[in-house]
């Protein structure tokens, strides 16, 4: 069984599709894409019995079909830049009390103290997100720029699972 990777990114099949190429091409991962915040949370919750080894999150996300996300998105002028739903998603997971979007109280157990499995791939710079990264305890962050290599996603995954030389075999073991 291959290790599971989750990429929460609303442009995964659009402008960011080239980032997915190397991950698929490697054939080493069970690669799951969530196109919005609602789907991202759903995937994370459903992974209780089979957790993700790495989760890469974009900051500017669409809300999807969950009422709470839609409401919050609406309050922020339906502007992904202002709503920063990826940030809200991470706060709900790791700093529940500070989250602006109040989902159900029960969060998945597998994410507890697992910030090291999470990375952020967004247009925001590290400086812009420093406070949040510190608060959340997330260290892996890459800024999307015009010169970002198309292997960035795969590189991040490798960093997030550095001790697994052959993830597929490790996972099976």
């Amino acid at each position, binding site marked *: 069984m291959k290790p599971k990777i989750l990429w929460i990114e609303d442009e995964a099949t659009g402008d960011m599709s080239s980032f*997915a190429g190397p991950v698929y091409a490697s054939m080493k991962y069970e690669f799951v894409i969530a196109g919005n915040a609602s789907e991202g949370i759903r995937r994370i919750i459903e992974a209780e019995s089979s957790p993700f080894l790495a989760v890469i999150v974009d900051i500017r996300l669409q809300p999807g079909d969950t009422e709470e996300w839609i409401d919050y998105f609406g309050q922020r002028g339906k502007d992904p830049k202002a709503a920063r739903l990826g940030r809200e998603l991470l706060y709900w997971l790791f700093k529940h009390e500070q989250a602006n979007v109040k989902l159900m109280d029960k969060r998945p157990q597998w994410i507890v103290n697992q910030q090291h499995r999470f990375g952020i791939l967004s247009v925001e710079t590290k400086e812009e997100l420093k406070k949040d990264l510190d608060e959340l305890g997330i260290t892996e962050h890459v800024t999307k720029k015009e010169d970002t290599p198309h292997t960035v996603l795969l590189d991040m995954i490798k960093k997030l699972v550095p001790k697994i030389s052959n993830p597929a075999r490790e996972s099976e073991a």
Partner: protein
Amino acid sequence: MSDCSNVAELIEKLKQVDLPVGYYVVEKDGRFLYANKLLLDLLHLKADNYLQASIADKYANPEERKTFVDIVLGAAARNQQPPKQVISFTVEGREIFVQDHCWPIYNPPESQKLVGFVGSLVDVTEEERYRRKLPVGVYRVNPEGMVVYVNQAMVKMLKYGSPEDIVDKKSVGELYFNPEKEKEFSDLLKEKGEVVDKKVELVKSDGQTIWVSASAYPLGDPKVDWVSREGVLVNVTVEELYRQIMEYVPVGLYRVLKKDGKNILHDCNRQFDEMFGFAPGTANGQRAEIVHVSPEDTVKYEKAIRDADLLGQPLVGYVLRTKKQDGTIIFIEANTRAIHKRGESGTEKGEIIGRIGALRDITNEVALREQVKEFTEDFGAVLHEYSSALLMLRESTDSALESLGQDPFPKVGEITPRVADQSLSEPVSKFIDSLIRLRSQMSVNRQPANLTPEEFEDLDNYQVLLKNPEKYIPEPALRLPAIRDAVKNILNLLDKFESSSQYQEQIKDVKRNAEEVLRICSLIYMHKAGNAILSLGKQVRAVRNFVTFHIREDRRDMHFVSKLIDQAVSEWADFAHIRNVEIKLDYIHPNVILNVSKDDVVRAMANLLHNAIKYSWERKQGVPPWVDIRTRVVQKWVHIEFEDWGVPIPADEIKNDVLFRIGVRGRLSSDRERGGTGVGLADARRVAQRYGGDVTIVSRPADSKGKPDNYKQPFLTTVTLRLPIFSN
């Protein structure tokens, strides 16, 4: 003063003349010594006993007799003719008013020994009643400052119940909100001999204040240290409140009137004074040109006022360069209306004799506008550079496409993931077959390939993926980058194979096939880039037009609406082709003419058409999507409708008008596959509103039975551009 020193002699003389007025002689205490028949009739006195009566008994307010006598004696003391005074008498229970013109009688004549009075009485009841019913307050004050008469209008004005509540009970100072002001009024009266239309604040019985315009004249000689007076009051509270508000509104108000060929400032408010650095009240009387920077500015400004006046309108929003008294230049926004003389026929306007206006200091705004204009021009130039760069990029992609050899794809048009899959299918199969052949040969001959076990595993993985990409990559859009990467990675691994290998030919074959796969991938990417550049170029142009909207000249001309639509359609014909969307012109009124700026309206239409193309879905399998354009004429308006069948616009977005906010895109439309800047609708509405029109949106389920909140179904969206018809 009577010439007769002897009262009896005077009476005898009076008896011998027959004057057509009532006249009398009384002792100094007012007791009658003589009255002619007219007077007896007037006062209803009887000839046989009137000598026992006193004229003072007839006074409606006996206190007034003293005031009357004082005034008469005061005048006599100054050798002046005593004034005629109107007195209220009560006769048979009825109030009458008489005008009493009376002289004192001294005996001997040159002495100060007063023995009586001789006078005439004229019945002025009718005139006085009219005066008392005037809708203005009328009052009289005695030399002690007590109010001795008020009319009903004044009683009502001051909210008292009756004249008796004031007369002899209130000093005039008590009626003033600030008694000091009463002294000022009185002093002014003494100094000027009359006071006309002086604004005074009085206090009503309920404690509230009232502003009146007071006019008064003295009874007696104002040069002496006491003055009784009579006057009228007009309630000007509302006007005064407005005037006070006008003093503090942040707008300079003024009036200019021509006098002896000069424009003279009048009625300048406090803000006007402050705006131009005058001491309070000192702008009035100055020449208007004192605030103008140059005679040319004055001429231009006055011409603008005349031009507006010819159209029957005030001059609005005129930016005038002016100067303060210290020479500082300030910019003001002038809103000015011409003042006319009355025309000769009495109805039409005569010549312009002045102007009235409101001024606003916009110096900071002008500076800001200049900055914005500069910034806008700079930004426009930057966007122009972008457009040029994009044009160059487009040429580069075209050139690159040509250099990539035979191109199986159409020059314009979107390459869908399905088409990409089909195009790659055969080259990828050939590549995999050649790779399998190579590896099987090597395996049979046990030829080392210089690869690590991990690299062998990678090679296996890539091979598995390329044999069946649909199985491992369910999302079609993601197959192309994965295939490209897998092939490139295999090529990298092939480089590690033994260079002296006996399988050079097979390796070359694999590489040749790999290059074909990568060539097709490159072609697809170059087409995508070319399309994206085309779309981006249009967006940059839209943003540039939007940003520079206000600094471009508004060039209006007559245009057939059909021609404007044709031009908008031609703007996006390529894009529609790329999207495989057909543009249908349903019914376009051929003769509707608009008086508009062609560039702006075509751009507005193009914006709406672009959206309609972007958000169109295929209505039937195998039938390309289409957009309908049609016009409707509603009274004096033409409605140009752009209708698509596809992406819904949620009801709340329409209701809250969010789509017209700059930079905002609908939540169901904000994917980058449908590029957009979020300025198109805002720009279109701004253009429409420049002509008094608007842009409106209706979006409803394409299936009339569909639930209006189910946004997964196709919606029929109609965006209407409404513009005024010049002629039809």
